[in-house]
């Protein structure tokens, strides 16, 4: 791509042709304040916060709407620009309630942050503020406070350009402007929570998170959504080992700045049917005992054993599982989808934006690790006597009559019937990586401490030791390096 050289604040910078001034500056360490600008939405140039001085142009220009040009001379730090930014912030704040102490956005509010960065001046506004609707219930998920709204139109553009539901619009004029649904409508949109992320102020808030916690008390963990094979990059926010909020993390290649509502609700609700403990023939045993027995089973019965892989398994776990299968010479490996779409929920089956039909996070990783493994539907039961079933959702009729070894975080019929059962962890409780539908390998960190100390990776390591095989690694990092 052609490169363009321009001068910003007397410093020469070179960026690809077509880059907007605001982006060119940010890439070179100059932050230009903004409200309506959002990287992944069309630019509307309406907040006027990002105005910069361009030489030979009599009026300051919105840097979010102006592409760079060769030889352009831009100023972002003149006293006039500084004064103008203060004035814009003063304008935004004259009708904005100063209710930061009770506003959920406080601490991550663009208005609060940019006011502190670029102004800090006392307002000269001594008139009565415009009063508007404070509690406008958009849906079960979203609430709108028209007084806090600064009419940046990000949410409106989101529903027009990204989720394409066209649910929101700006109505009325002047300082009476507010965001509205069509009369009688509700904000039904599979991505509606995204408007709470992109709202630069506390106008649009999540009813699930509202008044729950101050954002600076949250512990944040970079994670990967396990809701489908898209592998949206997310941030899980917890306090006292409880998930209070989940929000998207920007990734240009995967999910831009978005994630679906289903996944957020899914993370917010405790998962039902969790398994617990380690049992042999439904009697609790210790970890050492079950490792021994399973190792022995593998040594003695590998020729009659089928290994069924979990599509929730991490790439690192899969690598060790593969080592086990090869070392023990287990007869066959089959794959299965640990979670499938069902029409009994309101979950979207698939769409053009993010949601994929494969509702498990790592089938790509499974296929890469076990390229010859077939789907469990091809399993012929009479060929085997033992089955190692990893993860939930294996069809019981395919396994009936076999001796079952089950390793799963979610309880199902197979787990209930298994002679050897081990409660596993869900993805939020472990480190690892998933390979998404497009083959992108994405690491994630543990966000929650699970109830049990069990660790799938260590379990596989211990079995390998029992089989007298050197594991390729003993930690996630070691395995990842060896892969």
């Amino acid at each position: 791509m052609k490169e363009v050289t321009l001068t910003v604040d007397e410093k020469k910078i070179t960026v690809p042709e077509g880059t907007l001034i605001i982006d060119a500056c940010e890439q070179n360490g100059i932050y230009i304040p903004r409200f309506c600008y959002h990287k992944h939405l069309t630019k509307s140039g309406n907040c006027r916060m990002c105005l910069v001085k361009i030489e030979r142009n009599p009026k300051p220009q919105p840097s979010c709407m102006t592409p760079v040009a060769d030889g352009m001379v831009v100023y972002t730090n003149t006293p006039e620009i500084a004064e103008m930014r203060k004035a814009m912030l003063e304008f935004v704040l004259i009708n904005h309630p100063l209710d930061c102490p009770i506003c959920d956005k406080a601490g991550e509010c663009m208005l609060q942050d940019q006011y502190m960065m670029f102004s800090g001046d006392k307002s000269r506004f001594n008139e009565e503020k415009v009063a508007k609707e404070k509690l406008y219930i958009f849906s079960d998920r979203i609430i709108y406070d028209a007084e806090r709204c600064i009419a940046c139109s990000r949410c409106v553009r989101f529903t027009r350009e990204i989720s394409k539901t066209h649910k929101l619009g700006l109505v009325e004029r002047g300082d009476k402007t507010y965001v509205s649904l069509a009369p009688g409508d509700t904000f039904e949109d599979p991505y509606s929570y995204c408007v709470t992320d992109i709202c630069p102020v506390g106008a649009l808030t999540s009813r699930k998170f509202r008044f729950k916690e101050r954002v600076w008390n949250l512990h944040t963990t970079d994670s990967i959504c396990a809701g489908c094979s898209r592998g949206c990059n997310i941030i899980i926010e917890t306090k006292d080992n409880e998930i209070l909020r989940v929000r998207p993390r920007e990734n240009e290649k995967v999910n831009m700045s978005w994630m679906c509502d289903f996944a957020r609700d899914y993370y917010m609700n405790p998962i039902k049917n969790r398994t617990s403990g380690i049992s042999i023939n439904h009697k609790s045993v210790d970890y050492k005992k079950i490792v021994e027995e399973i190792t022995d089973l593998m040594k003695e019965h590998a020729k009659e054993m089928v290994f069924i892989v979990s599509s929730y398994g991490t790439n690192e776990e899969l690598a060790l599982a593969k080592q086990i299968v090869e070392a023990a010479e287990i007869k066959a490996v089959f794959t299965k989808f640990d979670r499938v779409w069902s029409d009994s929920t309101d979950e979207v089956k698939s769409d053009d934006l993010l949601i994929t039909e494969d509702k498990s996070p790592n089938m790509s990783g499974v296929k890469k690790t076990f390229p010859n493994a077939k789907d469990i539907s091809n399993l012929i039961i009479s060929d085997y006597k033992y089955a190692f079933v990893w993860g939930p959702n294996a069809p019981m009729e395919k396994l009936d009559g076999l001796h079952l070894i089950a390793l799963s975080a979610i309880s199902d019929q197979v787990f209930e019937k298994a002679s050897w059962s081990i409660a596993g962890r869900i993805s939020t409780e472990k480190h690892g990586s998933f390979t998404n539908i497009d083959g992108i390998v994405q690491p994630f960190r543990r966000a929650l401490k699970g109830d049990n100390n069990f660790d799938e990776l260590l379990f596989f390591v211990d079995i390998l030791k029992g089989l007298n095989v050197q594991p390729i690694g003993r930690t996630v990092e070691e395995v990842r390096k060896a892969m």
Partner: protein
Amino acid sequence: MSDIKILLNFEKNGTSHTLKSYQARDGYETVSKLKKMKPEQVLDEVKKSGIRGRGGAGFPAGIKWSFLPKGTDKPIYLICNGDEGEPGTFKDRVILEENPHMLIEGMILSSYAINAKHAYIYIRGEYGFALHRTQEAVKEAYEAGYLGKKLKGTDYVCDITVHKGAGAYVVGDETGLMNSIEGKKGQTRNKPPFPAIEGLYECPTIINNVETLASVPYIVEKGGDHYKSIGTEKSSGTKLLSVSGHVRKPGVYEIEMGYPFMDFLNNECGGILGGKKLKAVIPGGSSTPVLKPENCKNMTLDYESIAEAGSSLGSGAVIVIAEGTCMVKLLEVLAHFYHHESCGQCTPCREGTGWLLKIIKRIEDGKGKMEDIDLLTSITKHIAFHTICPLGDAACGPVDSFVKQFREEFEEHIKLGKCPYDGKFERIQTVVG
């Protein structure tokens, strides 16, 4: 004053708007000229005429037309801006109501010149009668074969659609008007792209004021050079002025550019009501700066002279203000208008116009503080030229000029703690001009 009448060249007898009456005044004669004229020749005549946009900004029409991209494969549109919303302006209304065929003829010629196949006439929602008359005229023009059919001797077909606005001042801005035609909320667009490159339906578009387009038949008939000889060096032609306020004969007048203002006020407009003294003049519509009598003494009615006096010819809406008028109250009325009409899209105008109004109202109510006066001008400093469209600038023009010209009146309100005027202006019979 010369008696030259280009736009108001007819007797107001209740039938001037009909095709029959228009043809009797040699209407649509220039259309038959097109078989011998190439589009570039029509454009050339308009360029030569030097006619400047009559909507307010005064940009030369011929030059605007030449901004169209050459050899575009997109359709080109012509729009006639009849969203006459500037307070004090009602001159286009006379053309739309009394002489719509002249506009249609002008639009046929202009469309031909810029190679537009489809033209729009956008009329503000409040102009019900003008809309009706214009629609009737367009219908007549279709029936007579001026529209919708190949013009005699050419392959050119012109279509005109009349579009009614929904009542927003901001739609008088060209890009706001285009959004409105497209069925979107009447809010303006950031420029660039400029309409000549990407306008209506993202196609190259030329948009001109009613008065500008209605002048085109005369320019084509008599030649651009002839038109240029009318008026002054830099302000050619005639101008419609809509006069309102404290004058004996308010109304719409057509004058030759360069006519002395005071003569116009005292002769044509019959002087100030009740023989009062002139206190102030807003010469070009509410957003142009207000002038004091001493500024107007040697002022002539053309773009340069009014600019020299410190204001602008704008849309030609002369608002005359007599002694006895409270300037703070008047500014409050104007500030109310701009606050009401702010579309709410961009921050400075959305928030600033309301703030201005609240302060001005407070001063008028006797609750002002001395520092409020400077606060007003420091607010306008950050609205003007920082908004997407000129509404922000328009809202600031009167505030700045009222404070500059009549600062002592603001101070008096604050010192007295009340408005020194009784708010009454004796009612005197006006003469309908």
